């Protein structure tokens, strides 16, 4: 009886692991937001802000792919296709091409949903294969999407083919359109580029929060377990197909949302932006940053977007130096820049509960 009461009392005192994970994820996403704000304040030019926005969008993509490759261990070589589907769903439903103008804020979830649906359609058959075969299937899927985007201008013009879609709507808040003109809030001026930077920062911070939360949640545990032993994971009651499909769908919807955002920012989309090489670029960010690590995905995006820009002045040696740096990083730090460790949240949670247990007995 006493033991029971002690147990109940202790239960109310014990901090919830869920709350701890929520705090930690919010803190980290907050740090990203603060860093973004600092970048905005310190940025010397619009050009810098544009690069930073690009980094953020790639970082969101890399965080999404990191869930698929890093957590669930599924090598997806057609990831950029989901980005393309998101971008094109906004381009087709919010431009003069078909004279449809659906609101941006509605299109973000729609684009995510479209990519997620495609993720299910591709994932259901593809996820029955393993390892290299899955890589080949996803690679083929990526090519199919690209070829569709190029060729769906005949017999009925849907995607406008290789010419792409121009004149895509800007996102609107009330009567004010983001990215139409520079705005001044007292002394602080936000150029059109900066406005999109803020949008991208919000999106990426949101993706980071979701990715961190999922990693430590029940589903993330199942993903990480599955990567080590599918047999042992299914013997724990986890449906492997469902877990894999969820990783695929989550990654796809993150890419889809990023696609909508990018289409609105550029004001135009072209099939060439969704080539296989882009999938490889995002994968390189994940691997370079540290497979399985959320901050690593960001670091990978910073390096792989920033470095080619820095190397512009070396002109024809640019790719050579770029390749050399990649080889060196992987040689000296094969686990990536940010190796994924054991987050402090999880340690802290049990330490509290075991010390209490030791004290009461």
């Amino acid at each position, binding site marked *: 009886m006493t033991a029971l009461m002690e147990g109940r009392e202790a*239960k109310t005192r*014990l901090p919830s692991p869920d709350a701890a994970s929520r705090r930690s994820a919010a803190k980290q996403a907050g740090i990203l937001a603060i860093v973004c704000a600092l970048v905005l304040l310190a940025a010397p030019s619009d050009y810098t802000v544009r690069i930073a926005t690009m980094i953020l969008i790639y970082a969101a993509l890399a965080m999404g792919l990191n869930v698929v490759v890093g957590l669930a261990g599924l090598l997806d070589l057609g990831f950029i296709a989901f980005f393309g589907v998101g971008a094109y769903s906004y381009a087709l439903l919010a431009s003069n091409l078909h004279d449809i103008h659906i609101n941006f804020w509605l299109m973000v979830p729609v684009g995510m949903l479209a990519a997620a649906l495609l993720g299910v359609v591709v994932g259901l058959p593809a996820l029955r294969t393993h390892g290299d075969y899955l890589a080949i299937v996803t690679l083929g899927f990526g090519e199919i999407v690209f070829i569709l985007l190029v060729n769906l201008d005949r017999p009925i013009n849907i995607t406008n083919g290789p010419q792409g879609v121009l004149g895509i709507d800007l996102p609107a808040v009330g009567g004010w359109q983001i990215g139409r003109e520079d705005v001044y809030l007292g002394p602080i001026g936000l150029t059109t580029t900066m406005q999109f930077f803020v949008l991208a920062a919000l999106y990426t911070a949101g993706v980071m929060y979701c990715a961190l939360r999922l990693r430590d949640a*029940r589903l993330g545990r*199942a993903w990480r377990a599955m990567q080590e032993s599918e047999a042992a994971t*299914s*013997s724990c*009651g986890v449906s492997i197909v469902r877990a894999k499909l969820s990783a695929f769908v989550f990654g796809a919807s993150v890419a889809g949302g990023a696609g909508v955002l990018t289409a609105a920012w550029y004001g135009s989309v072209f099939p060439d932006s969704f080539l296989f090489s882009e999938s490889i670029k995002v994968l390189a960010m994940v691997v370079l940053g540290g497979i399985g690590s959320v901050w690593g995905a960001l670091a990978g995006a910073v390096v792989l977007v920033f470095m080619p820009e820095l190397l512009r002045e070396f002109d024809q040696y640019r790719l050579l130096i770029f390749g050399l740096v990649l080889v060196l990083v992987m040689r000296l730090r094969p686990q990536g820049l940010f190796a994924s460790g054991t987050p402090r949240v999880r340690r802290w949670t049990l330490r509290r509960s*075991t010390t209490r*247990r030791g004290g009461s007995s």
Partner: protein
Amino acid sequence: MTATAQRMDGGTGVLAAESTAGHLLSATGLVKRFGGLIAVDGVDLAVPANDIVGIIGPNGAGKTTLLNMLSGALAVDEGTIRLDGVDITQRNAASRAALGLRRTFQNIRLFGGMTVLENVLVGMHVQTRGWIAGGIIGGWGVARAERAAVETAATVLTTLGLESCANSLAGSLSYGQQRRVEIARALASSPRVLLLDEPAAGLNSAEKREATELICSLPERYGLSVVLVEHDMDLVSDTCSAISVIEYGRPLCDGRPAEVLNDQRVIDAYLGTAVVR
């Protein structure tokens, strides 16, 4: 193991069907073929509630294949498996685990890159809540289930003497500790039947004694039944109330440990038949 293996023909067996009724876990006429090889050929099994039964046999007798069929890791070619009267033959491993049929592996399969606590929490997948949205938002009772799961996991880890390494990576533990983590992972979900595949393999004599004590205590403490596949005869005779022997995938004999281990057929199976000139 109560009455099984009365027949040697591998058929359906009316006798077996009668004798397995009312048991917690029962299997009748299990057959597994790998191409031309018949790995398991007409094995029956009946596990009463709160009991420990052993499956022994020489190397390659089909013990692990049998266990894999019971756990759902391998599809059954012929025969039926029932858990508490429910036919689970067509269910996959995950669904059987959710029904309370858990296992450990002969070659330890822990999630080495995750902490011991996380390993146990994966084992409690069925007891925890939330998927994509639930995992991100944390509502719908997710937080409560997580907290309860950590509590239970901590209790089980303490019982198995693993509380000090709860936050260590499972891959960094000693072999004996890893074996215990595997058992903890299965135990935390309060299973009804626990299938142990050679839990004493690779343990030293002190660890083996601990393992014996632990296994003996399981039915009473956790209200479950244990199916033990093992090579170590001391462990088997100290823990099991009944033993079934299989050889070349076929049932050889079964009964109480003392009888079975002194049975001439079993001795012959293990040591070979003496050549009489």
